[in-house]
């Protein structure tokens, strides 16, 4: 864990993000923002028939922490199954960032995590609905 919020890892992701952009036909899309500072992130997932994330992309604007976190997260989730991602916790996200966030910056660092959780929740809901017996 680095005490320097702006260590190379964060700045590299901020300046040269992984998969910043959009998918042609995403399975699920969700966006959210941090009203306090106006960070905005959208995440798109391409999930295959085996419930595995084939590709993840993000777009957005905001502080270095929020944008680097999005880049780090989409990199992390690719190749994982939805079952694995359901186990992914806020603590894991903070570990991924490798820097210690002050209380006021955790919202920036966890914005993408919150979006991911909403995406998975939405996918689960959709599945339940499609499996529910039609009446």
């Amino acid at each position, binding site marked *: 864990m680095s005490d320097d919020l702006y260590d190379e890892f964060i700045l590299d992701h901020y300046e040269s993000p992984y998969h910043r952009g959009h998918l042609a036909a995403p399975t699920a899309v969700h966006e959210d923002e941090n009203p306090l500072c106006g960070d905005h992130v959208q995440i798109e997932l391409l999930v295959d028939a085996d419930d595995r994330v084939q590709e993840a992309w993000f777009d957005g*604007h905001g502080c270095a*922490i929020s944008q680097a976190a999005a880049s780090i997260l989409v990199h992390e989730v690719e190749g994982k199954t939805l079952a694995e991602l359901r186990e992914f916790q806020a603590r894991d996200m903070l570990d991924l960032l490798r820097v210690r966030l002050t209380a006021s910056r955790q919202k920036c660092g966890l914005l993408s995590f919150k979006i991911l959780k909403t995406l998975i929740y939405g996918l689960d809901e959709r599945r339940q609905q499609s499996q529910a017996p039609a009446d």
Partner: protein
Amino acid sequence: MTIPLNPETCGVDFSPERAAAALERRFDVECIRRDFPILHKPLPNGKPLVYLDNAATTQKPRQVIGKIVECYENYNANVHRGIHALGDRVTTELESAREKVRAFIGAGDIEEIIFTAGTTASINLVAVGWGRRFLTTGDELLVNEAEHHANLVPWQQAAQATGARLKFIPLAANGTLDLTALDELLTPRTKLVALSGMSNVTGAVNPVREVAVRAKARGALVLVDAAQSAAHGGIDVRNAGIDFLAFSGHKLFGPTGVGVLYGRRELLAEMEPMQFGGNMIRRVRRESSDFADPPARFEAGTLPIVEAIGLGAAIDYVTAIGWDAIVAHERALTAQAWGQLSQLPGLKIIGPGAEQRGGIISFTVEGIHPHDMAELLDRCGVAVRAGHHCTMPLHAALHISASTRASFSLYNTSAEVDALCAAIEYARQVFRRG
């Protein structure tokens, strides 16, 4: 700097240095700094504090802190109630604070001064107490996108509740009011124009008097959000033709939790209270009640008594130094900051030139989000604010999501402006843009 100081010291407890400065009629920032204990406490990281977040809240001089302690230690009691020595004393102190506010804003009458919880509470009181009572379908409220949310959202709510319509004074490209079409925007249906005395983002000083004259010509009322302007210069509600004026104690070197609503006597007389209970009644029967006259009608429950008395002490403090001296000092700092900041690569200042603004400069720096900027400035001990500063429509109009704001006050120094610029350079280096 030699600036005439106000000869009336209003009983302020002067330090010997301050007294000497006052005698020599000079504005001595080092003497003033000694009045503010917090400025001399190092930060957790050991750096000295460079406090440039004055638009959010100002620091408190020991004259104000001392007054608060004096209240609690010597005559703490509720007002207008206890027939006892403490009750008498505290009531006298509170009403004397009200008189200080009256004189400070140039109101004609002490009954026109209502103590509230702050600017937000004051504007809401007008939006509900006056707005819900007098606005009807088709009436118009003239607002603008540069206002703090506190001077926009209450009007949105009033409009939704009454069928009135919001109209917006357009903004020029730099975020200042474009008044060229004001006379066309003002119609016989315009009931009120709400604007700030000074923007909390661009620092632009609005021509309140001119707007008031033109609004009056159409029969519209004028409400001024003086949250920022109150700390930067003399207000004269009668001379400026202001019908309602709102400000907060905490941005004027006073305590949090107290603010003021000024309303013209005739207007207050017709307004509905927003809160009901003790202190605001004349007679209570089983099923209905008669309300007290203003200001008590709008001061239900126990007031922020000590805070209001503390605000009185804050007004004494600034009055004793004198507005001319304070404004001249802030102008010099603003001009210096403007000059130095505009030299920094990638830095864009929002709003008008230095001459047209009070001591606020908001800016963006290419490639560094304001939140990151504020965090890195904080490492250097420089406290600023980052974000949308409760002005989302203004930021949208300027096509930015956030900005960094430095705001200056009477205790800031030229060296602190240098420290700000050096800290921005440091941030650019961290972001590998140096």
